[in-house]
């Protein structure tokens, strides 16, 4: 079932946008319109449908018009021409009062920088949409609390936004949108300002809510990974136009033009990891002055069975294994030097396939060295294997 139908939508910024419209209809490009009449084309003749209860992702780079398009859907940006139908009604024909009512009833919006009110508590922020609708205090508290619970913020009601981390602030933003129980969630790059781990967590949370709640979600992002993860269908925008619309599979396997192809290639390229990407910091090292007892102690406290030996400025000497150290201690040995064995090493730029070949039949980590022979980090077998599996997506 169709939720929204968008037909021949244009948004042109500047005075007398009709002039630009005329030129666009005559086949001028966005750049030519800017040059001829000094008008900026935000959205250029876009038509698509949004299905009921799907996650529709609009993606593109900054300046591609994706946020402008989203804001046309609830007329935060007034479209210059076209048609937006919601339940058979053309939104562009509504007067201000009807529009306000529509925004209150049908839409919830989540913003890139959260747009929370700093003078309101978490609960009051979540209540905002209901407050605007003049729902009475007790009822809106109940609904806002429910919404906060859904996003996992129960117990944080009385805090202020600035006391919360970015991820939690965006949860409040999400709760504010859910509290009004809208049909459509408009999400404008909601997770772009979050760090990668929190971002992933929020994406999972959103999917989780999506499966529970029967909402239509229109989601803006510039991150193809995010689009592929969330989107039932993805529209890729460039210069105000939709250059391709399809499922993730279609986009990945059947890019319509060079612009999309480049996007998709970028994704595949970024999946080729190097040693630098997957290396970790060694738990502990032994240094020149350390003897066998120290080495044993360090291995025991970190529960490892071998340890890398370095001298000044982390120059790698080799590896010391626990069985050799134990033997040496039993024989009353005081020096570590004789116990250091040579190991094979890799460089930071070596790719994961080469790493796999080297590490497959080793039972110790692979040290990653820079061109001066200094230890940058170590690569562990499980890391290589996990990332190789991820690469097959």
């Amino acid at each position, binding site marked *: 079932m169709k939720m929204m139908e968008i037909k021949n939508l244009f948004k042109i910024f500047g005075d007398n946008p009709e002039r630009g419209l005329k030129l666009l209809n005559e086949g001028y490009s966005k750049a030519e319109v800017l040059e001829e009449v000094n008008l900026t084309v935000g959205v250029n003749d876009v038509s698509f449908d949004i299905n009921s209860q799907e996650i529709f992702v609009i993606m593109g780079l900054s300046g591609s018009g994706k946020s402008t398009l989203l804001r046309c859907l*609830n007329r*935060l940006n007034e479209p210059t021409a076209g048609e937006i139908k919601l339940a058979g009604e053309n939104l562009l024909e509504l007067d201000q009062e009807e529009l*306000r*009512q*529509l*925004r*209150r009833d049908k*839409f*919830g*919006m989540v*913003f*890139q*920088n959260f*747009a929370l*009110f*700093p*003078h309101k508590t978490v609960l009051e922020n979540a209540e*905002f*949409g209901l*407050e*605007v*609708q003049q729902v009475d205090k007790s009822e809106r508290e109940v609904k806002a609390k429910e919404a906060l619970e859904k996003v996992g913020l129960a117990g944080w009601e009385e805090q202020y936004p600035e006391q919360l981390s970015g991820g939690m602030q965006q949860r409040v933003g999400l709760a*504010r949108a859910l509290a*009004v129980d809208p049909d459509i969630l*408009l999400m404008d790059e909601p997770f772009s300002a979050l760090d990668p781990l929190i971002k992933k967590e929020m994406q999972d949370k959103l999917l989780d809510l999506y499966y529970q709640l029967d909402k239509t979600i229109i989601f803006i992002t510039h991150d193809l990974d995010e689009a592929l993860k969330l989107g039932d269908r993805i529209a890729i925008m460039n210069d105000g136009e939709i250059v391709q619309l399809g499922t993730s599979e279609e986009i990945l396997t059947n890019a319509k033009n060079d612009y999309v192809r480049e996007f998709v290639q970028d994704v595949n390229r970024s999946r080729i990891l190097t040693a630098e990407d997957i290396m970790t910091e060694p738990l502990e090292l032994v240094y020149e002055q350390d003897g066998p007892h120290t080495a044993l102690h360090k291995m025991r406290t970190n529960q490892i069975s071998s340890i890398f030996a370095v001298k000044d400025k982390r120059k790698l000497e080799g590896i010391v294994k626990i069985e050799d150290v134990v033997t040496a201690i039993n024989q009353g040995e005081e020096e570590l030097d004789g116990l250091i064995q040579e190991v094979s090493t890799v460089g930071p730029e070596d790719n994961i396939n080469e790493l796999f070949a080297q590490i497959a039949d080793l039972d110790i980590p692979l040290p990653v060295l820079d061109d001066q022979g200094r230890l940058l980090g170590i690569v562990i077998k499980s890391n290589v294997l996990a990332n190789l599996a991820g690469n097959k997506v």
Partner: protein
Amino acid sequence: MNNLVDLLSTKIPLGDWVEAVVDFLIINFSGPLNLFSEVVSSLIDGFEGVLSFGHPLLLIIIFVLLAWKLKGVKIATFVAVGFLLVLNLRMWDYLVITLAAIITSVIISLMLGIPIGILKAHNSVIDLITRPFLDFIQTIPPFVYLIPALMFFGLGNVSGVLATVIFAIAPPIRLTALGIKQVSDELKEAGRAYGCTTWQMLYKVELPLALPSIMLGINQCIMLSLSMVVIAAMIGAGGLGEPVLRSLSTVDIGLGFEAGLGVVILAMVLDRLFGRDE
């Protein structure tokens, strides 16, 4: 050539024009002017009546309690010591008159200034029109608008209040407008996206977020009112400015210092009570 020199050496009769305009206003708008005069003088009288009701100590105690409640023990102590000193120096009656004039001026300034500030933030035409007026009233020597005030309302505290309002109205206008303009676009967008009416936008989003700036404007308004009320003594507004002026004309350093100290204490009390915590 000669004509040009003549033209350049002829003085533009700007002063005459201004006089003509003021005369015109006095003759043709006597009704509204009288009404304004009535309202203002009854406001001042009202506040004076309230402030001088009962023994001065009663008012001092009320102020101290207010300070204690709003700002804590330290400020309350300061208010007590300061006001008792003023009372002891026999300046209390002057202080009450000054305070009544300040309260009246500040109320009028804010009632006009905050709405104008709100309009100024939303309407670029009003913004453009008000800007030169604000520049003008903020930079012209304050003595100068004692004259039209005098011409409209004669000697007395109504003229004093009018001059004070003109002097003190700029900060609430400017800082209200600034505060509202500084509300981030994303927050305003959030308001619109959830269906705020223009009115809801103003009192649920813009005013609360502009509040720190507006409070600063109110604080500035109070301070400027105080400094003008003293100058307004020159046109018979009474209050603490009166002994200051008298000490000047009789070269009485002692009286001048005592009255001046009264002004300083009142200024500090008002600032600490209604200023933002630093």
